[in-house]
């Protein structure tokens, strides 16, 4: 009897799976994000509304049980007002945004012509070029940043080469400057600019450019009035893929910028590890998220419009 119900249950389960396998496929990654993104986010948000103490964990619990079973919830907004009051945080955010914005623009200026050239190349060359763009991912990111340290150091490859060729007498300061951070970020994030641009340009209808020329537009005018608007979704996607992670970047400013370059990632690390002020560190993280949510929403909006158009 039990075997009969069992097989009946199995049948029913199979039927449910067959019917709902699509929702199941969607559910798994959503569940993953819920556990490993949304839940930690709320934990961090909770810590940001707490007070630092010398204990383990180093912050006050949010919920306290007073006598007679009365629950007391204590929310402290000081950490956020502190971020606003202390110049250091504001300047660091500003500096981070400046560095990531300039890096994004540099990536776009370098990546756009590259993506364009790849799309226009013959199909065999095209595959080789795309492979070269993806090639750096085959070595560890950290290793590549260390390699840049070796290149940029006072006694590094570049300085030695320049001295050896007699262009300079003394090494130029390259490492631990803004310049080094820009080089690192642009180098690291360039593929993230090129790939979405490539994907977008691949779909571009080239007869539109001929139509523009036919109607009297010179090549540069055609570029401004047709090519740029048509590739705008690619430009936005690539820019966000560079801008968002570059703003929170920690390794590159730490290794290539040393103590001289202010960026949120480093600040966060310091608050957390050196100052052991978890609530302020959490507030910094939440504020960073807010700063980055804005461009993300912009992206969503543009994407929505694009799908609507097609």
């Amino acid at each position, binding site marked *: 009897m039990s075997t009969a119900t069992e097989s009946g249950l199995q049948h029913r389960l199979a039927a449910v799976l067959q019917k709902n396998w699509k929702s199941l496929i969607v559910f798994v990654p959503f569940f993953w994000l819920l556990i490993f993104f949304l839940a930690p986010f709320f934990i961090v948000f909770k810590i940001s509304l707490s007070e630092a103490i010398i204990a383990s964990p180093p912050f006050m619990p949010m919920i306290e049980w007073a006598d007679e079973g009365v629950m007391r919830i204590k929310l402290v907004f000081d950490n956020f007002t502190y971020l606003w009051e202390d110049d250091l945080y504001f300047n660091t955010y500003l500096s981070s945004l400046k560095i990531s914005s300039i890096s994004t623009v540099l990536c776009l200026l370098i990546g756009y012509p590259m993506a364009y050239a790849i799309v226009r190349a013959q199909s065999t060359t095209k595959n080789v070029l795309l492979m070269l763009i993806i090639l750096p991912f085959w070595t560890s990111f950290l290793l590549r940043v260390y390699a840049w340290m070796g290149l940029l150091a006072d006694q590094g490859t570049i300085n030695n080469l320049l001295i050896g060729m007699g262009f300079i007498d003394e090494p130029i300061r390259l490492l631990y400057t803004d310049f080094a951070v820009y080089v690192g970020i642009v180098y690291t994030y360039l593929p993230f600019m090129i790939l979405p641009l490539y994907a977008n340009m691949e779909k571009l209808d080239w007869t*539109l450019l001929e139509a523009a020329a*036919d109607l009297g537009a010179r090549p540069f005018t055609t570029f401004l009035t047709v090519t740029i608007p048509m590739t705008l979704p690619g430009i936005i996607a690539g820019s966000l893929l560079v801008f968002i992670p570059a703003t929170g970047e920690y390794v590159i400013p730490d290794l290539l910028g040393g103590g001289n370059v202010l960026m949120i990632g480093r600040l966060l690390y310091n608050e957390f590890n050196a100052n052991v002020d978890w609530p302020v560190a959490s507030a910094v993280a939440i504020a960073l998220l807010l700063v980055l949510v804005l461009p993300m929403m912009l992206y969503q909006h543009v994407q929505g419009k694009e799908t609507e158009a097609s």
Partner: protein
Amino acid sequence: MSKQPNYTDRPWMDPDAEPFIKVQSVSKQFGTFTAVDSVDLDIYKGELFSLLGGSGCGKTTLLRMLAGFETPTSGNIFIDGVNMNDVPPYERPVNMMFQSYALFPHMSVEKNVAYGLQRDGIAASEVKKRVEEMLAMVELSQFAKRKPHQLSGGQRQRVALARALVKQPKVLLLDEPLGALDKRLREQTQFELMNLQEQLGITFVVVTHDQEEAMTLSTRIAVMDVGKFMQIGTPTEIYEFPETRLVANFIGNANMFEGRVTENGPDHVVINSKNPTCEFYIDHGISIQEGQKTWVAVRPEKIKISKEPHSAENANQMKGIVHDIGYLGKVSTYRVMVQDTLVEVTSPNQSRPKDSNLIIDWDDEVYLSWDASSSVVLSK
């Protein structure tokens, strides 16, 4: 008083007329592939000229060379007396209507149409006026603010036309202008195009693979194959007097018979074919040698079909068995087995024969005959 010949409708007949577009031994090679093979062509002002051919015949390449998107490997193209070889597309006095229309998807209808005028630095008020006029002409005024993807195929076609015409080009190039439309819309648009062309007096050069479209639209047609012109002429010339088997087959249908010239007079030719055995008496002289092998073509609709012989003479007559009948409403097509060859006959269904003995049925023995002026000798 001698009558002055009037060439206004047929400028290509006028020995003094200067061609508006002159293609001079132009070739275009892509690698080892020759798309256009040393062609010469004169197109006159106000013509509606069609380049007709199957895919890969080089017609589109020739059109793209006129537009400036391809440069000839050798030869020259003159438009209005100016050599176009070094003139980029954006400086040519021509506009093109693309096969895919190539409307800018990010611009509204009016911005699409205004695009070309704005490039010429025309004042905004003038641009607005001319765009409005043009949209009124193609009956799209109420769609001015729409984006191309919000329009139907026929409307998009008209936007493309408006955009190409608004600059008042000297030559309008049209790449398969009606290809993307359904049959009804295509017929209607054909006549609209012709009216527009007559009204504006712009020279049209049309690329098409559709022989019916070319026949209806054109003042003259150039039939192309493997990068060369097979024949250039008016629709009537090309249909009635095809020069080659390829042209005869490409424009309409034709029954073709191989034979030998047995008599060559100044006003007539006699050709005898072996399979099926038949004597063709043709009442116009041609330059051909007696005894030469050649081909004769007879159009299906020029052949009369009946159960009784038409004349006692043997020439221009065949006897066969009805193999197949296709009833198409206004006409019927018969496929008649004459010895070992199937001959196609198209006959109008003008009236129903009263005598049932005269009704042609499957496996009936029938006589096929045609006028002495109805068959043509093909050169190859």
